């Protein structure tokens, strides 16, 4: 069984009074288990803020984020860190790997943080690297990897603790379109193959079209959604 996410009347306001900025206003949507959803919109449309709230990095001003019947908008402190550690896998923009660690060690850090059994973690890291075509590069330092390889390692890292929710922030920002497409396709294959829920923020419509569904945001509001047309 996959994860079910329901966002209701989500608001995020930065600051107060006249200086208040309404980054997200009244956003509601629901996902199906195993779905891969892209969130698109221009810069400043609130898509990253929404991703951050779903990922437990920001607390909403109003609204609920229901993850399998648990409102994570109510979580704070350690509970929120535990939610991020056990339920969420993040894929950030390029260069967010620890530069002094190898590809494999970057994955094993996740197991250390989660206090997992290291023997099982090593096997899982090797398996993920193999699936993403990185076996030959597993002992290369993050700084020695190409942009595409780094992002694939980041995908493997996000999946390392077997999260239910994979959140992706502009994964192709530093890649050319061909390499970007490869990375997103690998990402979707890994997420869907494991029956996870994937949410990807992107400004690149070509990448968004690879998702099952596209949510479009503008000025903090959800202004449209469409099932992606696949060629």
């Amino acid at each position, binding site marked *: 069984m996959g994860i079910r996410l329901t966002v209701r009347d989500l608001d995020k306001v*930065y600051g107060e009074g006249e200086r208040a900025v309404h980054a997200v206003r009244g956003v509601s949507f629901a996902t199906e288990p195993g779905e891969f959803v892209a969130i698109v919109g221009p810069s400043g449309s609130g898509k*990253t803020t929404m991703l951050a709230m779903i990922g437990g990095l920001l607390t909403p001003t109003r609204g609920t984020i229901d993850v399998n019947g648990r409102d994570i908008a109510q979580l704070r402190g350690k509970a929120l860190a535990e939610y991020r550690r056990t339920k969420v*896998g993040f894929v*950030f923009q390029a260069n967010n790997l620890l*530069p002094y*660690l190898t590809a494999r060690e970057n994955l094993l850090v996740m197991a250390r943080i989660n206090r997992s059994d290291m023997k099982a973690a090593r096997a899982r890291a090797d398996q993920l690297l193999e699936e993403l075509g990185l076996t030959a590069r597993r002992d290369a*330092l993050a700084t020695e990897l190409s942009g595409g390889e780094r992002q694939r390692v980041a995908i493997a890292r996000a999946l390392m603790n077997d999260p239910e929710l994979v959140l992706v922030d502009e994964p192709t920002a530093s890649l050319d379109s061909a390499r970007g497409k490869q990375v997103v396709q690998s990402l979707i294959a890994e997420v869907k193959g494991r029956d996870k829920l994937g949410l990807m923020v992107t400004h690149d419509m070509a990448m968004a079209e690879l998702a099952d569904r596209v949510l479009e945001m503008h000025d903090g509001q959800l202004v449209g959604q469409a099932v992606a047309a696949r060629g």
Partner: protein
Amino acid sequence: MIGFLEIRRRKLQFALVGLIVTLISFLVLMINGLGVGLNEQAGRALRNFDADAIAYSDRAGLSVIRSELSAETVERIGEESGARESAPLGYMAVNYRRDDGRVKSAAVLGFDPGSIGEPPVRAGRALTADDVNGLLADRQFLRASGLKVGDTVRLSVRLQEREFTIVGELNEGAFFFQPSVYMLRSTWREMKYGMVTENTPSASIVLLKGEGLAGKRGTGWEAVSKSTAFANIEGVAGQQSTVQALRVFGYLIGGLVVGVFFYVLTLQKTPQIGVLKAVGASTGFIFRQLLVQALLVALGGVVIAVPLAWLTNEAIKQAPDPVPIAFTTGTFVTTSVLLLLMAVVGVLFSGRQVAKVDPIIALGQQQ
């Protein structure tokens, strides 16, 4: 694990800070060694006195140099209730000429054979009441003068010069920052005062054994403990406070260097820390990595500095006029532990910085 791997992968960066920590540890060790060495120079011989208390003239302000006791007073001190044993001791500074022509000074202590003022002889023989021209010389004096048991030496004070034969070797240490030699108190009296009459002072101080003698006073005298006597040696207080200040600065600078290094490292790694927090790492987990790194760097520095300091001191000892540095196991252990503690204190500031990092920065978002 991450902390250790980072050190392995950033060898140069950590080796440089390790080198600085090594040098600071070395400096602090040498300062501590100097503190111990100067203490020994100031008066190891005094600390070695077989006494529970030392009596001075009450007009001397606890100065051995200025203290002069008459035979009557010495007798009264010995009769003080609680005093099981007593021994008058004379002190004076003398000069002697080394083979290279240089004039050096020595501390002369005049004692009575058979009394508690008699030092234990390590080589050669003890002085007898007939050895009016005999001398017991401390090892430090023998090393500094190049003399040995059986040799003669001319000691001069004021306008007098007198030849002595070294009959025994001692290991009592220095007195008043000078290597010490011991002679009969009667000889000391003659040398120091020339013509001896009934009014000639009989001793400088009196060693006392017994309970509750420190703090006692009588007509013309006062007694203090050995530690009080040591602290009142001219120059000791100033010297020890100077060494103490250097020592404290050494520890502070050591802690500061480690602290600043890890603070800057933490600032540089803020984006990475944000990512680690975003994926669920606690502040404690991240701080532990820093702590492991700080301890490894400090430990590395100390482990290199300890033998380095010891070897340096061994080399210094070979010099004809060595800097008085002395190490004890306690010096090494205390200094090492304190330096490690300072590294931990230094890294605490970085812990605050780690706690302040907001995981949202992992998304490159400005709040």
